[in-house]
């Protein structure tokens, strides 16, 4: 276990935890509040407790704070340490301490080269989930770390995709790094910690507060060399991440969606505003590393010739067995061919037995 957070930074992170309940009431954007120095922060959100907070901060037992993190199995690194991810320093108020579950060294390795963030809506469509997963897998195959927030929907799909390809993935959590949030993602959290790392800015024991989500988004935006939005509604947190990334001067990518799908409004809007188009992992790789520097995976396999017409029919939107029967693929033969395509990984079966071409 390495504990590489200095006293001053540890005290700052303790203060964030202490003020966790107050920060929801902070005026303006949370990243501005987090950029304030300790004294100003207490003045801004401390309310009537200011004097007591200052006294507590002065007499704080830093070792006790450290021992709590140790007991939770978390490693720490602060901004004064060379192992601290340097991209985070671009933030106006970078996290004082990063708490890491899954190994500090591992996290440093994973974040050394250009990571890519994949973010998006919690209410994702099957298409969005598919794309997020294949982006995660494609980037991981190319050796690129996938950063995301482990939220349900797109975030989880991106992590799951990266884990399929061996797992270079980092989850940035809103509350403590050893606390799976949302709680339903306990299994995914376990696999991320085993194969990658989970990090957060607040120490163990803090609750989950509203401000922690945009604050977490700023860390995702800062950690990644590029942020890709897969699906996001008009008011999605993923758009906050995209705005923050743009504010840091990092490229923002977006996956185009159907104009009639509400979840596509976010990425389509970003594209209209000049974000770079991401049609697959290769687009993201070209953008981060330069065209043709890295390749996502082996070139696309071709299905056996006799199955090509069926695959084409599915790609044209005949996505159910009934629709395929209408297009001339009778079930007595078509079902066998479908199974062959499915086995070969060319098509995938979604909710309601709808087939779609695997991305």
């Amino acid at each position, binding site marked *: 276990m390495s504990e590489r957070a200095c006293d001053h930074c540890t005290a700052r992170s303790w203060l964030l935890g202490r003020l966790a309940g107050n920060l929801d009431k902070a005026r303006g954007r949370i990243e501005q509040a987090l950029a304030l120095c300790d004294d100003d922060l207490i003045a801004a959100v401390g309310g009537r407790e200011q004097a007591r907070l200052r006294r507590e901060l002065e007499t704080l037992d830093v070792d006790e704070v450290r021992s709590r993190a140790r007991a939770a199995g978390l490693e720490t690194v602060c901004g004064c340490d060379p192992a601290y991810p340097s991209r985070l320093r671009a933030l106006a108020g970078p996290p004082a301490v990063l708490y890491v579950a899954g190994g500090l060294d591992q996290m440093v390795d994973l974040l050394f080269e250009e990571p890519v963030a994949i973010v998006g809506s919690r209410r994702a469509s099957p298409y969005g989930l598919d794309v997020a997963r294949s982006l995660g897998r494609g980037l991981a195959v190319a050796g690129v770390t996938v950063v995301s927030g482990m939220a349900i929907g797109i975030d989880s799909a991106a992590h799951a995709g990266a884990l399929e390809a061996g797992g270079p993935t980092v989850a940035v959590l809103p509350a403590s790094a050893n606390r799976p949030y949302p709680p339903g993602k306990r299994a995914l959290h376990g696999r991320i910690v085993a194969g990658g790392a989970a990090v957060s800015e607040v120490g163990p024991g803090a609750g989950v507060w509203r401000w922690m989500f945009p604050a977490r988004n700023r860390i995702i935006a800062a950690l990644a060399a590029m942020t890709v939005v897969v699906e996001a509604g008009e008011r999605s947190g993923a758009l906050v991440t995209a705005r923050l990334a743009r504010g840091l001067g990092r490229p923002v990518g977006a996956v185009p969606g159907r104009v009639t799908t509400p979840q596509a409004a976010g990425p389509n809007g970003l594209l209209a505003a000049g974000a770079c188009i991401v049609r697959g992992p290769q687009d993201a790789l070209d953008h981060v590393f330069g065209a043709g520097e890295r390749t996502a995976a082996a070139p696309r396999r071709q299905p056996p010739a006799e199955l090509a017409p069926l695959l084409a029919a599915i790609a044209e939107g005949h996505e159910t067995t009934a629709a395929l029967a209408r297009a001339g693929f009778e079930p007595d033969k078509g079902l066998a061919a479908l*199974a062959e395509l499915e*086995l070969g990984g060319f098509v995938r079966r979604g909710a309601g037995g709808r087939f779609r071409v695997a991305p």
Partner: protein
Amino acid sequence: MLARVATFAIDGIDPRHVWVEVDIRSGLPAFTIVGLGDAAVRESRDRVRSAIANSGFEFPQTRITANLAPAFLRKVGPGFDTALALGVLAASGQVPADSLNAYAVFGELSLSGDLRDSPGALAVAEGARRAGLARLIVPRERAREAALVEGLEIAGVSSLRAAAEVVTGGAPPPLPAPVSAGHTAAPAEPDLADIRGHSAPLLALEIAAAGGHNLLFEGAPGTGKTMLARRIPSILPAMSRAEAIEVTRIHSIAGLHASGLVQARPFRAPHHTVSPSGLVGGGAPPRPGEATLAHHGVLFLDELAEFQRSSLDALRQPLEDGCVTIVRAQRALVFPTRFMLVAATNPCPCGFAGVGDRCRCGEADLRRHSRRLSGPLLDRMDLLINVERPAEPELRAPPQTSSALARERVAHARERQRFRLAGCAARCNGEMDARLVRRHVRLEEAAEHALAQAYAVGALSARGRHRVVRVAQTIADLGGHDRVTHADLLTALSLRQRGDADPTLAAA
């Protein structure tokens, strides 16, 4: 003076031999019935007294004690009335006591002395033959049903007077004429010819019927899941006589059945609020549940995800073993439950998953829905079929097939199975266990390869693999193939996959 009459109690679905002993002594007029009878048996005293008086006999004004032996068996219902009345008549010398020895007597009495229709006559007849009795007196409505048991002389009588005449040596009345199908306008059986579109579900129905496989329909509301399921009995092969008698016995006891032999395979569709004991049997006294009423037929569970977890769990043993054992103090009852399970469900709580953007379910909803469905029951489904709205032109098109055509193909496939499985416990592919699958199913090399590939990519569990092979064998039987071909196996695979609304579910 003492008289003894044989009758039968119905315990679960089995007849138990009961002796009605009637003893008449001088003393103050009284009529007591002992022998663990329920309220209906106690009330029998008053019915018997009035029936005897109203049939032109004399009710003895002495001390009468009736005993239903064996005394430990709980006796339920009014079916002992006639035996009690004949016992009183014999004990008081109004009918000869010795001539009762060859008879079993069964039926409820009305105050006027008429024999009322009573459920369970077939079970009683079977019990009488097993007990070595030669003749049986039953209510007239039940005579044809009781006559299904060979080697018994059945007297279907309509009154206590007629019963007494039969016992004293009168000729038993002839059996009532069968209710001919021509007279009662039989409601039109649901037929596959009513179905438009739905080509894949139709194929699946035929496969399920041919192999006795369990089937799950998944589809948005109003797409025709129930309509498809209702037509399964119409393509199942006709029941053998032994099967039909078994079904008749169960349905007669449950009071579901009018007269004669049940010809159509049962189709039971319990509502999703059904309790575990309503589904698999139970209660006090134990009664057969829906699973037993669907014996040799189809048990249809509509809105599978809405059933109580405990009810679905209770179905596991009956599905696996083909029977359910209900243990009560003193005894265990076994109810047969060899049915085909057909279930229908929406793909997600709102029902519109995958239909454009209509689905409004969140990930948590989908997860909950999927968890309710998954687990032991989904694993026991052989065919998972998506049903969707037919297109407009299909609704106007002529029917694709009819039940008669499909039934012929099904019967042909069943014939092949019967030949192959001769001498085994299983009668169709759906009942084969792993050992029988290994012994009887032969895959072509390409099919073997595809199966190995499906298993390797994680598309199948070990149990799922076994189920796919059984379905593939049925498809081969329908196609007349000696070995399971590559296409047979792939079709079976395709009919077992269930689309997942959320790809992270598989990974997380």
